[in-house]
């Protein structure tokens, strides 16, 4: 059943890729965009508990519109040496969902302007991490970020699974630079027509300016697959349109130890 479903959606994607560009009632793939995102985080170290407050913003679409912004607060707790778990609350605006592709007037299709729509998201996180010191250079960590998200606005639930390998360049026994290569798989649990609604290879470099200031540069090649919206379904359409973009990110992180 699941295989049939996946094959059906793959066929839809192929059909849309072939004919979608001319069908204005289906969201189009604008091509490979370059988008920007940034985050600022305050990370507190209270021993086993690590509270976190993070602001994030994204400049998206062809016009690099500042659409998505969020504030996340919560804490990680180190359950085991190799396992951290976290619980977070996020308030966000400007998020885009499948059902935001609407037909406000007959024959006119557009994305909802969600910049003023406030959503709340509950997040649970469990990330096992392992030292891969058998690799050359020894200072390697393999981690798998597993993150469950429940969006209170539309009830959507999703799971992020992101395996990644990080190399730490140390100076005087302290990290100076981190180089990470991750691959994020975003799995919709109760929405969408595809197994993955988003996936991305994700590179990051973190510069430890000092113990309390870290600067981050990231680059991702993001693929988001838009599935049939309610309005499109009512119109008799079915689609799964991939949108791809290069996303460059900047971050300023401020860890504080107590």
């Amino acid at each position, binding site marked *: 059943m699941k295989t049939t479903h996946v094959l059906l959606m793959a066929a839809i994607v192929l059909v849309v890729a072939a004919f979608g560009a001319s069908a204005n009632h289906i969201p189009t793939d604008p091509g490979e965009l370059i988008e920007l995102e940034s985050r600022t985080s305050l990370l507190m170290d209270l021993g086993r508990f690590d509270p976190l407050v993070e602001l994030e913003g994204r400049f998206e679409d062809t016009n690099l519109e500042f659409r998505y912004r969020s504030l996340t607060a919560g804490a990680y707790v*180190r359950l085991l*040496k190799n396992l951290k778990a976290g619980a977070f609350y996020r308030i966000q605006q400007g998020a885009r969902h499948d059902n935001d592709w609407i037909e406000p007037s007959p024959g006119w299709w557009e994305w909802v302007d969600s910049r003023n729509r406030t959503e709340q998201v509950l997040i649970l996180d469990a*990330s096992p991490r*392992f030292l891969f010191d058998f690799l050359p250079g020894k200072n390697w*960590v393999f981690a798998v970020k597993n993150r469950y998200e429940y969006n209170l606005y539309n009830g959507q639930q999703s799971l992020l699974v992101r395996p990644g390998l990080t190399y730490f360049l*140390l100076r005087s*026994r302290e990290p100076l630079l981190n180089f990470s290569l991750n691959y994020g798989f975003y799995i919709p649990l109760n929405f969408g027509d595809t197994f993955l609604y988003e996936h991305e290879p994700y590179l990051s470099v973190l510069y430890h300016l000092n113990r309390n200031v870290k600067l*981050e540069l990231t680059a991702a090649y993001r693929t988001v697959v838009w599935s049939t919206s309610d309005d499109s379904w009512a119109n008799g359409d079915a689609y799964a349109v991939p949108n791809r973009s290069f996303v460059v990110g900047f971050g300023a992180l401020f*860890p504080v130890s107590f």
Partner: protein
Amino acid sequence: MKTRIITSLLSVVLWLLVAAAQGTAIDGDVVYTYGQVLVHRNPEVVPAEIGMPVGEGDVIETAGDGVAVISLVDGAEIKLRENTTLSLDSLGRNVSVRLSSGSVFSRVNRQLISGFSVKTETAVMGVRGTEFFVAYGRQIDRHRDVWVCVNTGSVEVAILQSRDTLIVEEGKGINILGGTNLTSPQRYPWTRKLNWNMDPAAGAVEDRTDLEQAYSDLLDQDYD
């Protein structure tokens, strides 16, 4: 009352005679022990006890559960943490002790002692102030790292091979990489948990700070 004073005086005289007969100068005594603590005094090895005299040439050794505080008559106290071996190389007004393993806290009364130094296999820590901590760290290079933290006063660190020197000021610490490369002194958060107390009457003496905290835990370096 008179009898008690005479008895005490006789005890001290007897103790002095015994110490002299053993060839040991009376330079200090053990004021606190916990767990297994041994005193190596050639050719004997005896368990340390509170009140036991120690002198030049003695080697104090603590086991994995051991803690000891040594008080030197000329005005210094030394607290040995677990798994520590400390040789009392020279005592008196110029004190020199040698740390072969583990870690020690030192408190020095500079008005009474003119010189106080802690030697490791690669460096010498000369006291200019009163209270500091020396510990062996991980062995990543040929020699082990050496940590020095200063609670009050300042400490001059000298590398034996290169003769490089550096002053570590109050409140700061330094990691001597591989025991030979000096780094910049800085305030290390983990040193805030060190227990500097050496007086059992004032509270717990044991210091259970996990010195592994001195190193970055790569498994805790998670920023998203």
